[in-house]
């Protein structure tokens, strides 16, 4: 059992018993995460621009590098060179501290995210709980930023963020619990290993209720990341920019980096919980082992996560923004009871058929069928919901 350690000790043990060894261990492990977070930020911002552009019938950045690949880098350099503005009468210390807290909250999560079988920095036995707990720290940074800016719009953003994040932690926690029930562990690595085998052993297929849990998880994680349609804390048409209205230059960039980092973290967590982590779903490919196996695993893991990140972007550029009371309604009236009920069903199924993986085949077939029928289904639902707004003149 590799994970019978606790967090602090696990890190400490890497550097032996001496203090400086401990510091060195931290530095050695921090460097790749820093690089990875920055890289994720760069790629995700570029992706966001490109995806939004193609959704909106335009090209997006095209000038800097091939297809504007280096645009984000150029913008980052521009932001670095900007004047570090602090509004008059702002609370300077808190103002400076806020982006750091937001970033740190995201950054620390990467410590327990598995990339491949051996590619995890700390395989914490409460990994999933760790991510949830640390993720909730982000709200503190947002509130701090909003309050210290001495701007009423920022304060509004902060209040909204606080309301939203604290509320959505509950359904999010319940969906995480469903994952834990399926895997029987809170360690992310063990959770992945529980999904070894063919593609139908992934939790989303294996347990007939997990896909619904995934939808709830995804919705709640959108709210946790403050992404559209839950981007109320920074609603640009209402609150100008919400909590980061007054931020500029590098501090603003740090907020941005944290946002994209967080998007990756929740997506990766979703992949681990529902989509078999670094497993490709083909046992031959997963059993390679060694360095190549780990590299393949890391590639699969990052690809899966980035696909989910892209779905988040897709949603952002498609849907309008929800109002605050509706956000709370969705959370407390729908997601919370649903998540509770699903948790019970997932546990029941797990109790009846603990190790059954073959059910996944049925689910996959059903899902493919549903996907093929989706177009007509969506149309039906749409026409049903729009029956009350039947528009005769639009029958062109």
């Amino acid at each position, binding site marked *: 059992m590799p994970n019978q350690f606790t967090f602090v000790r696990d890190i400490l043990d890497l550097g032996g018993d001496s203090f400086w060894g401990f510091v060195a261990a931290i530095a050695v492990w921090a460097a790749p995460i820093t690089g990875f977070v920055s890289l994720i930020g760069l790629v995700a911002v570029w992706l966001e621009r490109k995806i939004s552009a193609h959704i909106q019938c335009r090209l997006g950045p095209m000038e800097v590098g091939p297809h504007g690949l280096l645009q984000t880098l150029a913008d980052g350099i521009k932001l670095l060179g900007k004047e570090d503005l602090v509004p008059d009468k702002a609370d300077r210390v808190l103002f400076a501290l806020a982006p750091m807290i937001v970033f740190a909250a995201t950054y620390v999560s990467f410590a327990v995210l598995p990339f491949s079988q051996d590619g995890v920095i700390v395989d914490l*036995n409460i990994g999933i709980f760790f991510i949830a*707990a*640390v993720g909730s720290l982000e*709200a*503190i940074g947002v509130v701090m930023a909003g309050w210290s800016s001495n701007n009423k719009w920022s304060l509004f953003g902060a*209040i909204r963020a606080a309301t939203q994040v*604290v509320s959505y*932690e509950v359904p999010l926690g319940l969906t995480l619990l469903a994952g834990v029930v399926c895997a029987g562990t809170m360690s992310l690595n063990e959770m992945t290993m529980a999904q070894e085998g063919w593609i139908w052993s992934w939790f989303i297929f294996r347990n007939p209720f997990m896909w619904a849990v995934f939808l709830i998880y995804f919705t709640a994680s959108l709210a946790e990341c403050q992404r559209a349609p839950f981007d109320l804390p920074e609603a640009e048409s209402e609150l100008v920019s919400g909590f980061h209205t007054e931020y500029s230059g590098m501090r603003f960039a740090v907020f941005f980096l944290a946002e994209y980092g967080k998007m990756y973290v929740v997506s990766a967590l979703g992949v681990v919980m529902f989509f078999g982590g670094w497993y490709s779903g083909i046992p031959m490919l997963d059993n390679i082992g060694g360095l190549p196996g780990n590299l393949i695993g890391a590639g699969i893991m990052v690809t899966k996560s980035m696909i989910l990140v892209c779905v988040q972007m897709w949603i952002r550029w498609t849907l309008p923004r929800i109002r605050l009371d509706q956000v709370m309604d969705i959370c407390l009236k729908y997601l919370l009871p649903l998540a509770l009920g699903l948790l019970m069903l997932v546990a029941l199924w797990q109790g009846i058929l603990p190790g059954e993986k073959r059910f996944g085949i049925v689910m996959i077939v059903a899902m493919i069928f549903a996907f093929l029928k989706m177009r007509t289904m969506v149309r039906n639902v749409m026409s049903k919901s729009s029956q009350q707004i039947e528009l005769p003149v639009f029958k062109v």
Partner: protein
Amino acid sequence: MNWEAIIFWALATMVIAPALAIVFSKNIVHMAFWLLATLVGVAGLYLLMGADFLGMTQIFVYVGGISVLLLFGIMLTNNEPVYLRKLVKRPKLLPALTVGALVFFVMLRALVSTEWAQNPVEPEATAPALGMYLLSEFILPFEIVSVVLLVVLIGAAFIARRDGTGDPK
């Protein structure tokens, strides 16, 4: 001095110093943020002692949940930074000292009467054991606390309703 001691003293400072700052700070929002630092420090101490689940719960519940709600309450009710000195016009010294002394006595008593482990044991994962205890030996207290929380939840929702309809408009 080994790293454990260094980290312990750092965390201890992180608990004590903000706690003092809370007392002496004048700005109520600053107090809330100092409280946060204290809570994070306590969580660090838990982690150092090998109570990983407890430490994370501390962060999840107190730092991520309760403190945010605290800040939320402060910010929603006041749009200006509020200074406690204005709120408490005449500090009531005697009751304050009495209550403080009582709490101190209780904690001292607990400190003295506990049998502390002399030799540090190799820490283990605490989450499974906690789960087993909660659902077997301590199931009754666990359930009672749950019911109490439910009552609180319903009560809060009831109080928060503006009129009889529950509709904020």
